[in-house]
């Protein structure tokens, strides 16, 4: 069942003739190529279902891979390459959304849950640990009666 989307992605992309990263695309400089691969994993193949351009076989992904390498050869930093692509294709292209107000809930969620849960537990432990209130006079008397 979890595979169905992958299958779709596969079907959409597999019919295209190109394959994920091909030898002819790769840069001669291994350091630059490694950076290109790293960046590719952060970018979405926009005609596929949840695939990075590094994994995708779609022609569009190939175009983007070539574009990333072109920018890198032109001397861009990783950040500049990503900025360039976001400017061109929108934030949708990033697989890791940037920190921004509209993404605040997304990024904060895990830590918020942890924080709220942790505080809740602490408060609960505190309350539990508090000594029970002292016995009222009549209760004390009953206790003494019982113990006798």
């Amino acid at each position, binding site marked *: *069942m979890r595979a169905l989307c992958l299958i779709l992605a596969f079907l959409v992309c597999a019919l295209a003739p190109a394959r994920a990263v091909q030898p002819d695309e790769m840069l001669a400089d291994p350091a630059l190529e490694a950076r290109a691969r790293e960046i590719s994993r952060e970018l979405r193949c926009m005609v596929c279902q949840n695939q990075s351009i590094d*994994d995708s076989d779609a022609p569009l992904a190939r175009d983007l891979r070539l574009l990333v390498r072109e920018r890198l050869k032109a001397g861009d930093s990783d950040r500049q390459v990503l900025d360039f692509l976001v400017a061109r294709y929108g*934030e949708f292209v990033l697989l890791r959304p940037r920190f921004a107000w509209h993404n605040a809930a997304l990024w904060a969620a895990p830590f918020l849950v*942890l924080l709220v*849960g942790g505080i809740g537990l602490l408060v609960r432990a505190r309350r539990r640990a508090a000594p029970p209130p002292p016995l009222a006079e009549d209760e004390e008397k009953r206790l003494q009666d019982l113990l006798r």
Partner: protein
Amino acid sequence: MIAEIGHYALVLALGLALVQMIVPAWGARTGDAGLMSVAGSTALAQFAFTGTAFAALAWCHLASDFSVANVYENSHSAKPFLYKLTGIWGNHEGSMLLWVLILALFGALVALFSANLPMRLRAHVLAVQGAIAAAFDLFILLTSNPFARLSPAPYEGRDLNPVLQDIGLAVHPPLLYLGYVGFSISFCFAMAALIEGRIDAAWARWVRPWALAAWMFLTLGIAMGSYWAYYELGWGGFWFWDPVENASLMPWLAGTALLHSAVVMEKREALKIWTILLAILAFSLSLIGTFLVRSGVLTSVHTFANDPARGVFILMILVAFIGGAFALYAWRAPALKAGGLFAPISREGALVLNNLFLTAACATVFVGTLYPLALEALTGDKISVGAPFFNATFAPLMVPLLAAIPFGPLLAWKRGDLYAAAQRLLAAFGLALLAVATVFAVEQGGPVLAPFGIGLAVFVMAGAASDIVERAGLLRLPFPTALARAAGLPRSAWGTALAHFGVGVTLLGIVGNTQWSAERIVALKPGETVSLRQYDLTFEGAVPRAGPNYRELAARLTVRRKGEVIGVLEPSKRTFPVRGATTTEAALMTRGASQLYASVGDSEADGSVMLRLYHKPLVLLIWLGALVMVAGGLLSLSDRRLRVGAPKPARARAAAQPAE
């Protein structure tokens, strides 16, 4: 005729489910034992009729009756027998029928094995179960009828999606559904407890085997799906953080938390309200998973089930059950009496910590999966949340959880001693440090994270072993005594240790695979050789072959190590003419726990072939670890305590005693 019998049987199953929903609940309300006892027989009958419906669909598929639309769309007369069988659930309608079949199966099992359950509880559990069955039976009958006929009947079918024609994916859905639907039982128990407003340790003892069984199937299902994706999709990843994968991971995380908190409840009567919540969550997430995948909401246009009527119907089921469950929870849970007290540093405390992190991890996956949908619906902004996001958020939540695993079983109930537990883990910690140092020394400038990852994995594994060593007194007592003590330990203790050990094994595999994989992407002409780590691979040539319903082009690679031939890899590319689709079949060579992985791409005009070659160290441990976890679950399930059943309430015992 057979299809009509199946259709009719499903309608009858719906009727029985409705009876099972209403009559026992009414009986419980009025205190009528006769009405309450209807639950068991209707559950069995409902299973029989759902089974008949499924058998009818199976017959249509196996006999290639193309007058049935479902068979026509998903089968072909030349399809191998195995895939005719698995094609039954390789489509939307059939998979939903499998879903309700498994639901009915669990209902029948509860009916059979609940003789020692209090009558009202049993009636309520089965009534809730009947309600779920009725909703999904109705869903199938109204929107996804698998028995619809075609007239005139076509001569030949359109074949099953080739990607589904694989043994891994063939057994994946049943396993996954056994997990998903298995959590419906703990859900029903939680609902029944809330309706009655009473819950105790015995409740946890009844629920735990069902939750454990569901968890085991889900673990197997996820592992199987992951392995399938690894060898079939052709780029060697084992987890893609795909929404569909996340849909199965969320109930798993909630279910894992449920297993742990149910332990606390059974042993100490604490965390009652929380355990109920987790039981509701685990099944709600299973339903959400079904909704995400079946409604097509994730994929908008390109999907199997993109009929909006279906999506809306499942959404209604979702809202009714999840909303109803939470409303009932909000109403009744505060009335439940809180249980035993415990200090923060204690076995209970450790299990609470486990729950906190698992819940946070589950929330991360949930938000990450649904945030893009919500954002698009609310503001129209389109964003993507993919693997890099999950790796950045999920991993930091897992590390403290994993590091805490070995401490849990070593802490005492109520009030534990962290210092004493740490002392007992000294050996495990030493081993972990040794592993870190060794990896650093051997690696010499490899990935920095790898040594620590390996160290953590070793700590988890050694910690699990320490627990058994400590309990058996293997280092303190004479060896035969210790051995006898180890054999005498409850199976649940062995199960816990084994399952935790499995977590370490999986982690080892993940670290090895993500940190040390080597990759070569090359275009080779026949006779050319490429080296990958210590292996040399020579491309001998491409061989065309024919299968029963496909053609393939296999690339033959001879693998040599130090000049010696150690085997052949034959990755291939299959073309299925009926659908005009192609699949990649990766070739794998297992060396210990590591694998050589080859997948073939296009062939060029000059006779060269595109190849992706990987060396994946320790990769098999990822799935082996899952198997070890399941083995731990199985051992725990076989514990005498769970088989014998809960002790009878005091009243019953008193009645059985002779009068004095």
